[in-house]
């Protein structure tokens, strides 16, 4: 068999398997991300089926996957929404950072991964999966609930934090000197501010550049612009993903909606490759030794996210059940934790164990998140009922 034929067969087998896994996840009402990761672990290095010959494609494709993940995230929000979100939820946002980065930082330091590993692990446990959460809220019919805007504005805040965090992470991972690091952070802060202001005031011009009546032309222009911006951002040390995110924010209105509709299938395809490649590069044998830490992190960071949502909802005047729902809704971690771990591993500045821990952690959290969101109501109700019974019993000593 010649090389091309083998590559096509391997790629076809990978995508087909992912499709079957995705369907299985859909039936169980789960996010497909953990299954993609498992698929990646099963293929490749140390896995069941070794794959050779497609890495040239999958390496570029997984980079494109990250760019598209962030581009579509940016397209979801308009600059105005980001600003109102920032103004309304900055306090909850800061509580969110402190509570949820802490477990990751602590575990990284305990394992002796140093400050760089701590920075990466903090990001991994901090960032909730807006993709999983938005889908779960829609599936459970909670979009009309009063606590939902609280949850969404925390997610908006987290995504803005990502725009700052990723360039800082990439610079530090790059091992650039302290001064160079400061410079890069300065550049990225400047770029982000300029882009946000441009998006707010002149967003329609940015939209006009990429917009077109013709679907095909539109697709090529949007996709091309995204890769160009990502490439330039990457060359400026701002991180390709953040460039794409900012472009997404700058594109607004109906152009953003059309772009989302066109790019969604591409995003699903390339992001799936990204998750598989991440799994591929993780040796399954390295997972069991860190499994206990992953479970510890999962338990602790589930509690801290519930605490964050509970606190934010309580401040917004939401009732008890709503507070519990807001907390549990935020639990899911997913795509962006893997994006962070991917950066850290690609830079080679952290221990290989970090990839294994991140994989195990996201596997747990992407499954646990939707389940937590589902079971929180019955659990909270029964706790409340039991609490009432106790207090009634205490009131009437026979």
């Amino acid at each position, binding site marked *: 068999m010649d090389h091309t034929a083998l590559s096509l067969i391997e790629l076809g087998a990978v995508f087909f398997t992912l499709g079957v896994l995705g369907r299985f996840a859909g039936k169980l009402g789960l996010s497909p991300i953990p299954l993609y990761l498992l698929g990646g672990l099963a293929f490749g290095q140390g896995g069941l089926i070794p794959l050779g010959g497609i890495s040239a494609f999958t390496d570029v494709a997984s980079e494109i996957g990250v760019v598209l993940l962030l581009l579509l995230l940016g397209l979801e929000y308009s600059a105005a929404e980001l600003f109102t979100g920032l103004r309304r939820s900055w306090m909850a946002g800061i509580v969110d950072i402190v509570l949820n980065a802490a477990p990751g930082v602590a575990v990284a330091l305990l394992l002796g991964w140093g400050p760089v590993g701590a920075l990466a692990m903090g990001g991994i446990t901090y960032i909730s999966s807006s993709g999983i959460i938005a889908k779960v809220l829609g599936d459970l019919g909670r979009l009309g609930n009063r606590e939902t*805007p609280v949850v969404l504005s925390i997610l908006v805040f987290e995504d803005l934090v990502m725009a700052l965090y990723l360039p800082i992470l990439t610079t530090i991972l790059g091992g650039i000197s302290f001064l160079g690091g400061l410079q890069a952070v300065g550049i990225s802060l400047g770029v982000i501010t300029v882009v946000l202001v441009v998006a707010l005031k002149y967003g329609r011009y940015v939209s006009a550049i990429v917009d077109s009546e013709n679907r095909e032309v539109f697709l090529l222009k949007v996709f091309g612009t995204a890769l160009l911006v990502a490439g330039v951002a990457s060359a400026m040390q701002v991180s390709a993903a953040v460039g794409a995110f900012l472009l997404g924010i700058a594109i607004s209105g109906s152009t953003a909606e059309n772009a989302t509709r066109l790019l969604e299938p591409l995003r699903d395809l390339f992001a799936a490759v990204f998750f598989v490649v991440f799994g591929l590069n993780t040796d399954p044998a390295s997972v069991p030794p860190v499994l206990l830490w992953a479970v510890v992190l999962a338990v602790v960071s589930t509690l801290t996210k519930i605490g964050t949502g509970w606190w934010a909802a309580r401040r917004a005047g939401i009732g008890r*059940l*709503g507070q519990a729902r807001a907390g549990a809704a935020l639990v899911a971690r997913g795509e962006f934790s893997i994006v962070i771990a991917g950066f850290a591993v690609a830079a080679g500045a952290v221990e290989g164990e970090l990839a294994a821990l991140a994989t195990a952690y996201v596997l747990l959290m992407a499954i646990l998140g939707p389940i937590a969101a589902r079971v929180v109501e019955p659990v909270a109700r029964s706790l409340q009922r039991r609490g009432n019974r106790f207090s009634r019993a205490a009131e009437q000593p026979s």
Partner: protein
Amino acid sequence: MKGVNVEVTPLPGIGVRKDFALSSGRRVGVVTHRDGKTELIVSKADDPDACLASLPLTADEAGALANLLGAPQLVAQLTEEHRELPGINTKQLPIKSGSPYDGRTLGETAMRTRTGASVVAVMRAGQVHPSPNPDFTFTSGDLLVAVGTSEGLDSAAKILQHG
């Protein structure tokens, strides 16, 4: 609108929620998705933060629901105004699918000449079209608000149904 305070809450990345509290304390409203989908939301009785139902509605369904809610209001208002004139009634007359006037104009019904009843408004997709002209074209789902005598309104209803 008297005493109804519609709250508009942006849902970043999803759309907008518009709702208001009923006198019973429950909330009712809609979630409008950015792609134009509409969901009708009704809050739970025991937990005002949560939704008992969130029903996705198509544009047609939302319009029909708006008609059902809006038309009786208009009829009640007109009836109230005509109270001093005995013998005058107000009634809602639907254009059902299969009506001979689905797709034809008000003028073609010759309603006033044949029955003495006048069509004072047409409700379509929750919108009131007041004093329609003779060239106003009906479509199935429209609700006509007509004023006339009881007999006149009865025969108007028959005309709209059977021609």
